[in-house]
């Protein structure tokens, strides 16, 4: 931990050297360290000295409040140091029971999910699937409508999982998500990699684009605009990107059934990256790929079903059907007769 008072006594240059990531902090707060240009000496000034070079009118113009900014800088540096510290590996997530919508206790003692697990969540609309995902995202501490409690690594979690801007427990993927930025695939993945402070950036970016291509039915180029990708290509890119660039150890998937991607491969990719995957789904192929199914009824977890070998044997049948359907889709798309 570094305090604002200790930063106050360092020069801007020293701060930039000690914590290179602060450059983007300065830039985003209206100060371009590079702009000093003809006056590099002002960077050797301490906090007060540096801001004294900006007159009152200019400060007001740029809405700069040096004291507030210093406190924010200290907060930012501490967050980044924690973020860059890989010491916070997550290996399990535990759900402790609460109550269903009628206030009756849920009938399980504890539910532990571990990295590499794939869990599906099933139940009718309005039964409480999203609430369960919400409890996990908010790391519930008996303070949500369900009264559930979530433990991380068998322990009461650090509140920073809730409140930190940089560190989020959960990444989400869902059917209606689109790309909205005006960038090419490569620019986009690079931008994300930059914000995640990935070290071997070029390599990671190439890898993501290649993996996304192998998940998508139809291949795409790195120079394609993300907004012109098809639904399947978008979903494929989102999954590959999340697998490699998201820092969140838990991935929540809300109904990606009709995505037109290789779903099995997508899940395998996420598991390989040591993620915990929870998905709300009614797609039997996806559900059977899960190790367990959580059945939700009336707001509570009613049952947990382990996927049995017998059930799995249905999977290959379903996958066969799936492939047949896909081949018809391809024929349709290519303008062929379905009878051929």
């Amino acid at each position: 931990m570094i305090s604002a008072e200790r930063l106050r006594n360092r020069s801007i240059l020293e701060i930039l050297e000690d914590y290179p990531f602060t450059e983007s902090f300065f830039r985003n707060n209206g100060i371009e360290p590079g702009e000093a240009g003809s006056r590099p000496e002002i960077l050797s000034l301490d906090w007060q000295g540096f801001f004294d070079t900006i007159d009152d009118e200019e400060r007001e113009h740029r809405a700069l409040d040096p004291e507030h900014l210093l406190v924010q800088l200290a907060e930012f540096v501490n967050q980044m140091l924690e973020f860059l510290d890989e010491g916070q590996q997550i290996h399990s997530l535990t759900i402790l029971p609460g109550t269903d919508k009628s206030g009756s206790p849920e009938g399980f003692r504890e539910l532990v999910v571990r990295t590499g697990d794939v869990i599906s969540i099933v139940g009718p609309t309005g039964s409480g699937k999203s609430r369960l995902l919400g409890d996990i995202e908010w790391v519930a501490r008996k303070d949500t409508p369900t009264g559930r409690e979530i433990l991380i690594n068998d322990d009461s979690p650090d509140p920073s999982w809730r409140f930190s801007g940089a560190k989020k427990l959960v990444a989400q993927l869902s059917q209606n998500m689109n790309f909205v930025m005006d960038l090419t695939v490569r620019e986009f993945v690079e931008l994300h990699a930059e914000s995640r402070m990935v070290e071997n950036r070029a390599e990671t970016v190439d890898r993501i684009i290649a993996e996304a291509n192998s998940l998508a039915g139809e291949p795409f180029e790195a120079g394609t605009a993300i907004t012109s990708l098809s639904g399947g290509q978008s979903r494929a890119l989102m999954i590959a990107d999340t697998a490699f660039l998201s820092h969140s150890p838990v991935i929540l998937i809300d109904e990606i059934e009709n995505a037109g991607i290789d779903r099995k491969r997508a899940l395998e990719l996420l598991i390989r990256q040591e993620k915990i995957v929870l998905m709300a789904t009614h797609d039997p192929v996806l559900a059977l790929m899960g190790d367990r199914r959580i059945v939700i009824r009336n707001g509570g977890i009613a049952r947990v079903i382990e996927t049995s070998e017998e059930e799995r044997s249905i999977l290959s049948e379903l996958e066969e059907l799936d492939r047949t359907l896909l081949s018809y889709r391809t024929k349709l798309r290519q303008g062929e007769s379905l009878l051929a």
Partner: protein
Amino acid sequence: MNLVTISGPPSSGKTSVILKTIDSLKQRGLKVGVVKFDCLYTDDDVLYEKAEVPVRKGLSGALCPDHYFVSNVEEVTQWGLTEGLDVLISESAGLCNRCSPYIKDIKAVCVIDNLSGINTPRKIGPMLKSADIVVITKGDIVSQAEREVFASRVNLVNPSAVIININGLTGQGSYELSTLIYDESENIETLVGRKLRFSMPSALCSYCLGETRIGESYQMGNVRKINLENKDTGGAL
């Protein structure tokens, strides 16, 4: 009574988020009211009325809505007290990206949406930078990666804020916000003597005062000129 100031660019999802959050507060038996500040027009009051939320609106007309807000916030607080509210929420649309209605020690929430573009956080001034809680909406329609990039940009300009994602349509996340904005031990009776977190610009030029003619001889007061020589600085450093 608790007072919460909620601000954010137009159409960022303020009303949607407030309505969903009020649902959660009501379930705890709390009485909530809203005052909506806007510039020329608003029909948010109709939405609040429909949800049976006591509401008042203030239109600032020719004034900056945030300046208008501060000039009226004490009266509004007294209205909330007479109504017997447990929580009074103010909704105001930040329009100039430079003013901010936040008051020291009064909860300040900024609502911005994922669709507004990744450079928006650095364009919004104190309204975002000095908020206690930043609510990011419309995450349901953008990719996880864009959400992460956007949240990290918000974090760059306001590292100490709690950032929460709320879906204004389904209300996912609004329960969580409701737990952050209500504090049983807080009891506001007046705002007299309190201070703004950030001074508002003294933007008095001749055009503020009704001048319509263009040309240097008509310009008086606080006039700044654009720097066209240097294409990078736009007047910085």
